[in-house]
């Protein structure tokens, strides 16, 4: 796989890996059957600034690198700014992604949105983000997408 130096850097030295015990927004997207799952933890303060963000990812090099880059891009930003994060911006920040790995960046964008949707939900704020989180064919595969579908046996 022809990964950029930036992708390899974020894969080999991922930023913000882990969990946040007292996170107030947690989102999981992807599917083990497709080969990638991203889980994102947010700590959002009263003025809606993301003070901390962590991730855990099951997936390929690009999945780990896009997760890492996405967390870096939203850390310290407002919820609104974070909602504006696009997969394209993640790709650009990583110096490009192989065509077959574009879906990983889509997944990273969705992971951020999913965690924010959870934050809103916990706050009791009405929002149509949750509805949008029906995985938009993130990996183009034919499996049914059940988010956080890990083990079926």
């Amino acid at each position, binding site marked *: 796989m022809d990964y950029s130096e930036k992708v390899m850097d974020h894969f080999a030295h991922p930023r913000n890996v882990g*969990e946040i015990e007292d996170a107030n927004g947690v989102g999981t997207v992807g599917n*083990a059957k497709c*080969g*990638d*799952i991203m889980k994102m933890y947010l700590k959002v303060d009263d003025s809606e600034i993301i003070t901390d963000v962590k991730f855990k*990812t*099951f997936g390929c*090099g690009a*999945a780990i690198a896009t997760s890492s880059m996405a967390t870096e891009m939203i850390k310290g930003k407002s919820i609104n700014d974070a909602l504006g994060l696009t997969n394209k911006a993640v790709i650009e920040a990583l110096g490009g992604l192989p065509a077959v790995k574009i879906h990983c960046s889509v997944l990273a964008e969705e992971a951020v949105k999913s965690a924010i949707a959870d934050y809103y939900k916990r706050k009791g704020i009405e929002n149509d983000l949750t509805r949008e989180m029906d995985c938009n064919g993130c990996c183009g595969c034919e499996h049914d997408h059940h988010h956080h579908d*890990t083990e079926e046996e």
Partner: protein
Amino acid sequence: MRRIYADNAATTAVSREVLDAMLPYFCESYGNPSSLHAVGREAKKALDAARATVAAALNCDANEIYFTSCGSESDNWAIRGGAHSKKGKKHIITTKIEHHAALHACKALEKEGYEVTYVGVDENGYVDPADVAAAMREDTALVSVMMANNEIGTIQPIKEIAEIAHNGGALMFTDAVQAVGNIPVDVKELGVDMLALSGHKIHAPKGIGALYCKKGVRPDVLIEGGGQERGRRGGTEALASIVGLAKAAEIANAELSEMDKVAALRDKLIDGILERIPYSRLNGGRSPRLPGNVNVAFEFIEGESLLLLLDMEGICASTGSACSSNSLEPSHVLLATGLPVEKAHGSLRLSISKDTTEEDVDYILEKLPPIVQRLREMSPLYEEVAKNSK
């Protein structure tokens, strides 16, 4: 940095002896074996000698060996040409774990109107000859079953399956690309009609293969040309590569007993991995298995990231995960053994050779467990397991 090549099922290094045998056929004996003059006759002599050497390695006559450009060509020729040669018969039997070259040749026949039965394998990756027998029909033209699997190393009961094919009046072909050079391959003992092999899996260069066709078995010609290979396969013979293939086959046969040492290292690797790494399982049965094949599935992680981290430690391996290829589905072979899709994503293939040392195996056993653990710590699928075990 230390580099350990554990991807010999993908390709092998050309051995020094093979290269030395080939060198005179580039600038000195460069003739076209079809030419009548001295330079051509010299080339023809080398071609004949190489053919006899390959034939001896497989226990057949020289005029039963046809040189091709690669294993994939041999597979395509045997399957498509073999099916076409059985006029009026429109059914093929193969398995779900064949190499893509063989599998896609069958798919091409489906487009022509052939019906193909894809026989399954058990959880250890073995074909049951009874399943082949049950699939046989009056109009079965060809049975195509690989001798040894490239991903999980399982060796199939080709002799029994060949008998079944012949009892039903069908041709028997085996793709022996992974078998030749690693286990004894005797075409008479196996009783097959056609057998494919490839140079670059046995320390000869890429771009050379061969097809054995038993006397009287004549698959329809795939590549028309100037009458080379007794009119069965056109194209000026790649003499240097053919000489290389012959040398490699000769060495492999002479050193076949060395494979016991390779098998011992394989077992050390398998046992070492399964002992050191929880939530791992061996893909493919233990026996009969190719001496150099190790294939393990690690739960909760994905194969491509595993390969990248191993590569950073100088270990070259392979995976059945979809993420390392352009396809979205993981290995069809692993899925055929019943391995769930999510576990197939976490598979690792290490294929060692006679060049692999015990130190290499120790190095892999030292580097692999922390890499798997590192990826698991990063995996949301591992969270629950980690919490429950605390």
